[in-house]
């Protein structure tokens, strides 16, 4: 695993952001006096509801197009919903799989100027190390979050996140801040929709990985097994994939001498991969029944990677994880087999594997199978509100703060297994409470994490003239949830609002009240299960 120094996120954030003063405000709310002041005194409320309850109390199923977007993006965006409704699901997914065909505007060039450290080489980053750790952390996380929110290549970004978890590296780990940005660009992003074998080879020789899992120390005289074990358990075969403790030792021997160039090496650039034959174990090894002949040098490792990448256990392991990502926490074996077969047949082509997954009955005909993760929750809130704005330059720390509260800050999972993607991990009291608070604090008019200000979200456009509680609830649920609201939930929302305001649900409200209520209703919708299901 790691040898992490623990970083105190809140103090890091405080030191990181000097331009705005909101960072200490979370947890010390301003009080909701502004709303109260604009409202008439409470009195009565709208008549009690005496209609019989709906026969089945459940959340109505969303459209297949909505479900497809929810699963293959960081949250449904109204423009993309329109696109998939027009194109059809098949054509939409094909376009997403061919991610370079999608015009992403000036996103990457904007990121380069907004977050330059996310694009620097190890040598460049080392020149400012360790003073630049906080800035590097800020830039590399912000670039990731911006792509999740703004990129039109949403499936690609979902797969970037998937592989970042699969080949997890903790950023704040020794020299990690100087190395991980390059791994992100050249290993993960370069291969996220490419070929698994290439991805695995790139990861194995990535200085960031060699450092994180200690292989840079691995030498013939006394091997270090850390990378060898996680390579088989987490990157390829899976823990039940059929390897033994002896295989781990043999794989560790194969990777002896795979190391990195250290700072101030006169023979080359810091952070380059090197193979050091002097500390490589050149004797014969046996891996999963395959003989690695003596004298193979660096090819020992590449042979191991080939054996592992093409092993049937790897196909099963990757297929299962993909099904858990795109379908449900308990995918059925026949679906996994279909995906695994495509992985094998295509020699690990990720696009072909995903295409097979997207054609399964389980993907096409189920929905709302699990709780979305915090990254989708956070990026999705912006996407749902679809701000009509350029990329703001002053929100990086805001998103970092929000995501550190939600608990899925990119590159911040310490152990090599990556963030879990199961509901049992994410569904808990503290997690749900933090999502509720965040939607309120970010989007209400008194929020202390004013994402709403930064993005200049235009609520009035969403309302489209609605000025009664009834029309406001309808307009906002249509616009923000983009899926049908149960009659019962609509009634409950109206009951709440009529009680809070003392107005009937059909009385036109003064503009100032509409302005105060709109973000509050938006926050409640974003807190609801409607929004949180994937």
């Amino acid at each position, binding site marked *: 695993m790691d040898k992490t120094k*623990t970083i105190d996120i809140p103090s890091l954030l405080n030191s990181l952001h000097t331009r705005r003063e909101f960072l200490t405000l979370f947890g010390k709310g301003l009080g909701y006096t502004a709303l109260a002041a604009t409202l008439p005194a409470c009195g009565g409320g709208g008549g009690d509801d005496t209609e019989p309850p709906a026969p089945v109390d459940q959340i109505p199923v969303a459209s297949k197009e909505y479900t497809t977007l929810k699963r293959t993006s960081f949250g449904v965006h109204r423009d993309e919903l329109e696109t998939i409704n027009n194109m059809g699901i098949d054509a939409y997914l094909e376009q997403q799989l061919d991610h370079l065909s999608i015009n992403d505007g000036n996103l990457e060039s904007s990121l380069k100027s907004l977050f330059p450290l996310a694009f620097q080489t190890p040598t460049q980053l080392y020149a400012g190390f360790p003073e630049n750790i906080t800035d590097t952390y800020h830039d590399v996380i912000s670039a990731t979050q911006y792509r999740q929110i703004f990129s039109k290549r949403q499936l690609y970004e979902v797969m970037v996140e998937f592989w970042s978890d699969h080949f997890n590296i903790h950023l704040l780990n020794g020299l990690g801040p100087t190395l991980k940005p390059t791994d992100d660009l050249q290993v993960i992003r370069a291969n996220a929709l490419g070929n698994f074998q290439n991805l695995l080879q790139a990861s194995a020789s990535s200085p960031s990985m060699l450092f994180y899992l200690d292989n840079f120390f691995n030498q013939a005289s006394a091997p270090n097994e850390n990378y060898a074990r996680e390579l088989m358990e987490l990157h390829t075969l899976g823990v039940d994939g059929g390897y033994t403790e002896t295989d781990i030792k043999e794989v560790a021997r194969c990777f002896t001498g795979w190391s990195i160039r250290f700072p101030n090496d006169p023979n080359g650039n810091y952070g380059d991969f090197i193979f050091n034959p002097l500390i490589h174990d050149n004797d014969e090894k046996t891996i999963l029944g395959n003989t690695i002949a003596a004298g193979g040098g660096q090819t020992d490792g590449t042979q191991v990677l080939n054996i592992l990448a093409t092993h049937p256990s790897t196909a099963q392991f990757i297929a299962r994880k993909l099904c858990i990502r795109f379908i449900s926490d308990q995918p059925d074996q026949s679906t996994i087999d279909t995906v695994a077969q495509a992985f094998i047949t295509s020699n690990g082509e990720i696009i072909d594997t995903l295409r097979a997954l997207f054609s399964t009955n389980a993907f096409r005909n189920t929905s709302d199978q699990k709780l979305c993760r915090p990254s989708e929750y956070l990026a999705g809130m912006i996407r749902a509100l679809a701000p009509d704005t350029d990329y703001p330059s002053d929100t990086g720390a805001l998103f970092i703060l929000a995501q550190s509260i939600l608990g899925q800050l990119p590159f911040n999972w310490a152990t090599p297994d990556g963030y879990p993607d199961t509901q049992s991990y994410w569904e808990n009291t503290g997690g749900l409470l933090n999502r509720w608070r965040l939607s309120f604090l970010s989007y209400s008019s008194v929020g202390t994490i004013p994402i709403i200000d930064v993005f200049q979200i235009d609520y009035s456009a969403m309302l489209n003239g609605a000025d009664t509680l009834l029309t406001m609830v309808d307009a906002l649920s249509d616009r923000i949830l983009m899926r049908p609201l149960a009659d019962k939930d609509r009634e409950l929302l109206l009951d709440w609002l009529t009680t809070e305001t003392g107005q009937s649900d059909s009385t036109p409200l003064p503009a100032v009240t509409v302005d105060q209520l709109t973000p509050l209703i938006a926050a409640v919708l974003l807190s609801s299960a409607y929004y949180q299901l994937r």
Partner: protein
Amino acid sequence: MTNNQNILICIFQRGAADGLNALVPYGDPEYYNKRPAIAVAKPGNLNGAIDLDGFYGMHPALAPLKSIYDAGELAMVHATGVPHGSRSHFSAQDLVERGITDKFSLNTGWLGRHLAQDNNAITSAFRIVSISGNVPVVLEGAEEPLALSDIESFSFDQGIIDAGYPSILADLFRTPLPFSNTAQSALSALDELSTAKPGDIKPDNGALYPTTPLGKKLKQAGQLIKSTLPVEVICLDSDGWDHHESLPGFIQQSLSDLANAVDAFYTDMGTNMQKITLLIHTEFGRRVAENGSLGTDHGTGSLAYVLGGGVNGGQVFSQWPGLRDQDLEMNEDLKITTDLRTIQSEILDKRLGGIDVNTVFPDFTYSPLGLFT
């Protein structure tokens, strides 16, 4: 209202904590043969172990625990673990938390099973607390454990409450809609917290908690215990024990953090400690022989600590298996001579009240070590 329920606090050392450099078997010459570069020196030497009984010595970073040991309220159990045979962190943590050796046998945690069968009349959301962002496997099977990473931020801002947000959330997350149990539990926890205000409780007796994650978690455990909330079980993690390289430096930091945090907690609790049992353990130990990076790879047996009221402390419980090659598990690991479930069973039996331990550990027969007086 005071809470007289006995309380169990479990600290899981994630990452496979080395037991051999924490409780040093300095009387076994093989220890120095197999760890020539990373061993802790014998007592009396520079940075040497703190002698306990002529055979074992504490790592010097554990010094703050020595007075608790001497007061008879800390017992240490060496060469312990769950004999699951896995050297994978993730599988092993899972198996240890379930208290099983065969992954297919039970899908609940050992504490979860205990709490489910000992379903006492307490209906508080604070009966079972995980001080972290998630509910650990060990609590699976228990009714709605609370996950809370920070007491202070586990609240609604007044503005949210004034806007009637909790009541509309209670409506929207009604049974049987998705996440309703979790949501209702969060809402009632908020209610209880707003009355009990544990975040306002200050450490007593001059206790100084380290500002590390572990220090902060134990401080909050102390606040919950001293509040009126009827807490019964608290789980928390100590992270970062996977010392494949440069073990001497890293374990110095980790043990020092552990000892300082536990010492502060012990000081803070004062007489409350009489109703508390603190159990500290890991998923497996580390290889006896050092590797080429001044670290150790994954192993088997390790160390557990039991602190608190009624502990028959001031002693090391162990049948020392020896460190010669032929004494070792797979010829390289410290053998497990005391099953960790023995310790856990004894805690349930003696401290948490007359429960049928065999239902908690159905595949395991327990005979007490005598950890409690």
